[in-house]
């Protein structure tokens, strides 16, 4: 900026207002209404958004961990072994795959996951863990109903 007098130079000390506000407006560029055009409203929303972003970095990791657990649990139940037995038996077999890789295998490589489940089930049987007894359906409503239909 060009100052023609010393008075203006003194009055304009501190950060340049335009560029300072422009940084905030850049962050508010995708908002709608006055939230993107009025500085005093934009700054509030930008602050809030930055707080959400900070919290979200943590939450994203938790959400992904939850998703992996859900997927591994689903994969385990397909093969008739529960999640905790599966993890415990893999650890006993020195298979130290983390939850992310196990979830990827359950989702994308079901045969690989099945072989892991077989390893875990064999180990559980060898160690005498009493978690593999799946109770068969005691009353066969479905088969009864299908019989009645015919």
């Amino acid at each position, binding site marked *: 900026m060009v100052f023609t007098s010393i008075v203006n130079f003194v009055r304009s000390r501190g950060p340049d207002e335009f560029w300072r506000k422009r940084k905030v407006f850049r962050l508010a560029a995708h908002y709608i209404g006055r939230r993107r055009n009025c500085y005093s409203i934009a700054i509030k929303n930008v602050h809030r958004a930055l707080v959400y972003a900070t919290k979200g970095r943590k939450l994203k990791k938790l959400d992904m961990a939850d*998703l992996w657990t*859900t*997927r*591994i649990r*689903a*994969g385990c*139940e*397909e093969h008739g072994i529960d999640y905790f037995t599966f993890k415990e038996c893999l650890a006993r077999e020195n298979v130290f795959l983390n939850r992310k890789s196990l*979830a990827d295998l*359950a*989702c*994308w*490589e*079901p*045969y*690989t*996951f099945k072989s892991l489940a077989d390893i875990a089930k064999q180990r559980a049987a060898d160690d005498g863990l009493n978690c593999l007894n799946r*109770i068969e*359906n*005691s*009353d*066969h*409503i*479905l088969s009864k*109903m299908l019989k009645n*239909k015919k």
Partner: protein
Amino acid sequence: MSTIKRVQQWATFARIWHIYDAAWQNPFESAKLLRKYLMGMHKPIYHPLNDCGDHVIVINSKDIALPGDEWKKRVYFHHTGYPGGASWTLAWELHTKDPTLVLKKAVYNSMKGNLQRRYTMERLHIFPDSNIPENIMKNVSNQLQQLRPKPTRLDSYDEKYVKEFPKIIDYPKDYILR
């Protein structure tokens, strides 16, 4: 197995129809089980944005069993929106009005309140008895296991079986059975 077929999954996104017998089952514990199948959480491809839930048919919902004295104590609240429009219905009253509603509300409340919840509920088909329309029954390919076994009552055994059942003692002739 060839390298290409190693990751091949047929009919991954197909919807499966399950059937569940609610007779003598706790609806609030059953809701957790049904929710899992309705939302597709029993599949390794599950993702909250992934529409992979299955259909569940629930039969015999009129024979559900509430724990303890919940038939008398559990209250369902409704408000019409007008002043004085609040109403409280006991579980047994609601059950006499519509024998599917207690279970339906249990499943609905067991899910998180988001936009997907109502579409997920569309995949739940509850019937008060075991009379299911033919066009629905023909889709069924799996039966969900009951959470607890349904006990057989003494009057449902045939008389001969009861009479011939091994017993330790015979009552004396002058013994009065009450």
